[in-house]
């Protein structure tokens, strides 16, 4: 297991470097931040001073060297926009996104396991058809539209929920529901498909022939084997959420990493953008390793391959 973790960690270093390099150089190709941060009437001298103060007058390779040296000391630079340390801004925003993603994935997985298993238990039954229809719909609804409709219906028309913000449990309902709907729809379909295969497998027939309880057959035997593909897809969906639920964070005023990244791209706030991408990439690599570990725990064949 440890050798597998070590291999995964080592193989993650190269993509991480590519991400850091890509973000650093591509961001600087998108225009001069002086145009955004100085008044339109600023003189050429003011622009030159701005560039010199922020190191933008140096060759790109020198800027990159300085950046790497700073990061090695855990110094991510200063935000051009707020004049605050970029690392602080990112660390402040990340927990909000992690909470949102954590609750969303927890509810999506639990809901998908229950609904997907029920649908797969009797394929082509009414339950199965309704679950398939609803999950396909859920997987295809645009989240922007859903969020706005949620605000109009549940906040403005019915007055049951606040429109936005993060205060109190009620404020979590619309963002989590909006974010939940797509992963839930996708996972229901994956769980259903995997469970249909698993429930018709020989080992399930053997378990039933031996007189095992039906709940044990479904949850102890079939679900465990069906969990691997669902876990892979859930991992992918979780990565998407950790990357920042940009639409939901923007509409509901959620101070998360997605909104921070979009703002820093639009504002050419390079230090914040680089810090946010680096931290997000690290978390995504950690998440991928976690998914691999879960795979190994679920499936002894994976453990054996890892050991070999």
């Amino acid at each position: 297991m440890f050798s597998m973790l070590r291999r995964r960690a080592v193989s993650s270093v190269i993509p991480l470097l590519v991400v850091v390099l890509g973000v650093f150089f591509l961001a600087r190709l998108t225009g001069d931040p002086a145009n955004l941060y100085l008044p339109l009437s600023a003189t050429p001298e003011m622009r030159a001073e701005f560039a010199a103060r922020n190191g933008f007058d140096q060759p790109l390779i020198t800027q990159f060297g300085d950046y790497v040296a700073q990061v090695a000391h855990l110094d991510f630079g200063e935000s051009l926009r707020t004049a605050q340390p970029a690392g602080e801004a990112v660390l402040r925003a990340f927990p909000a996104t992690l909470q949102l993603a954590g609750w969303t994935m927890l509810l999506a997985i639990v809901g998908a396991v229950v609904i997907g298993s029920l649908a797969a238990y009797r394929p082509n039954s009414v339950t199965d058809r309704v679950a398939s229809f609803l999950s396909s719909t859920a997987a295809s609804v645009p989240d922007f539209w859903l969020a706005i409709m949620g605000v109009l219906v549940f906040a403005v028309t019915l007055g049951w929920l606040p429109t936005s913000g993060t205060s109190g449990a009620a404020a979590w309902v619309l963002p989590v529901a909006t974010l939940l709907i797509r992963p839930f729809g996708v996972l229901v379909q994956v769980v259903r498909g995997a469970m249909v295969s698993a429930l018709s497998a020989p080992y399930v027939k053997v378990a039933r022939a031996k007189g095992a309880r039906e709940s044990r057959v479904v949850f102890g035997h079939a679900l465990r084997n069906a969990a691997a593909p669902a876990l892979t897809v859930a991992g992918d969906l979780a990565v998407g959420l950790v990357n920042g639920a940009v639409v939901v964070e923007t509409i509901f005023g959620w101070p998360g990493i997605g909104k921070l990244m979009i703002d820093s791209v639009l504002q050419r706030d390079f230090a914040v953008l680089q810090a946010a991408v680096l931290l997000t990439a690290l978390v995504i690599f950690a998440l991928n390793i976690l998914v691999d570990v879960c795979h190994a725990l679920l499936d002894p064949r994976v453990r054996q391959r890892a050991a070999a």
Partner: protein
Amino acid sequence: MAGSGVVQTHAFVRRRGRAAGAFTFVVVLLAVSGCSVAGADPIGEGPDTLRIVLPEEPPTLEPCDASLTATGRVTRANITEALTERDPSTGRLEQALATQWTRTSPTSWTFTLRKGVTFHDGSPFTAEAAAFSIKRATDSDIECNVDGYIFTDTEVTAKALNDTTLEVSTRKPDPILPLRLSFVEIVPTSTDPGARVRKPIGTGPYRVDEWSQGRFLRLKRFSGYWGEAPDFAAAKYVWRAEGSVRAAMVTNNEADVAIGLAPEDGAGDRAVEFVTNEISYLRIDATKAPLDDIRIRRAINYAIDREGLVTAVFAGRPSGQLVSKGVTGYNPRVRPWPYDPDRARKLVAAARADGVPTDTAITIIGRNGIYPKAAEAMEVVQDGLLKAGLNVRIKMLDVNAWLEYLLRPFPRGTGPTLLQAQHGNQAGDAAFTMGQIYGSEGAQSSYGTRELDASITKAQLASGDARQKAFADAFAQQNDEVVRDAVMANMTGILALSPNVRYRPDSATNDEMRLADMRRAD
């Protein structure tokens, strides 16, 4: 049997381990969420708190960046104050922390300061603090926005003559110095001279109470304020990027004021429309054919249906010049160009007959989100120009790519362009419009003439009525003889107001939202 027992025990331990893992995950999630919710943004804070929802969080509250819209609408006249202030309706300069000012020589002004004013930290407001603030804003390492916006073409030095008398000198004669100083927010001498401050101390009716970054900013009424105490004991700002959500917060009684709305945001009967100082226009690159022919530039102006645009696309009033009423230099005789497609066609045909390459592709460089339905507006313009006989295509860009076209040096090899732009003269004097936009060497100017440059220079040196007339003449000259632009409309802003609050927005509201002007409705 013994072996079977061991297997069962292992299976039991594994199941318990998994259950414990899942339980731990849920507990951690709950704990983290609980912490966050505890520190979250309670929207309602009682009737004594004015709740305002903004499109974006202020990047800083640094007083010398108050000319930035996102900062200024929170700080200016609320947390900090200047020596003078401009009435946006009349254009007149009023007293603020200075009660009187006199021009003692062509390059020197003397200001008499208000007595009995204290800063939020209890220190007295003196001429020394005013001199310190002017130096900090115009000559420090902070790169103050106000320095680049207001003081680009002038250098000032300030000296305290005594506690209530301040002398401000300029290198060159500056007839509008008191107006420029309406942008310098006064801070105490204890303010860091070399770094931006996040929680400024000022003399305004409100002081900063708490700023929970990303969530809310709360101001509290300053009990030692020298003027009339404002109605509300506190003001709380939150920010939502989506206009329909801002409008919904007011209709849902989660906020009292929402700004920066578009007609389609659904504020309903809570919506209040007001004329802003923003003017939308197309900048014509008159250095390239066929736009170098004045007939084509006139044809472009005749081909744009301004009434149609403000009725069906965005909110505003047709306009013929880049400043709005109330700004020194506004010329009431410069009217919006009439919509006359026949005349536009004839002008293009006449130019074509004289060999002007009217079939050359002209690119409209648009900017997404510059105002509501920006892309649709350019499609309407394109349609009018195509019907006039020109060959026009549209390229919509994001703000930074668009800025490359707005500011010198312009990108090379682009062919003839029409730039979708908007200009807001926040300062109240045409000097902040004419030089940079119409001067031959202006930062945003694609074309100018020597005659117009001379008129602008003459206007900049004039004062009083002569200044008003000189700038008004320069606007007329631009409109009649140069036609560098197709000015479209004086844009209208929309805010949503709860029935609990009385407030009359004015043309400066987008840049400066005075909390003291917001009153209880009861």
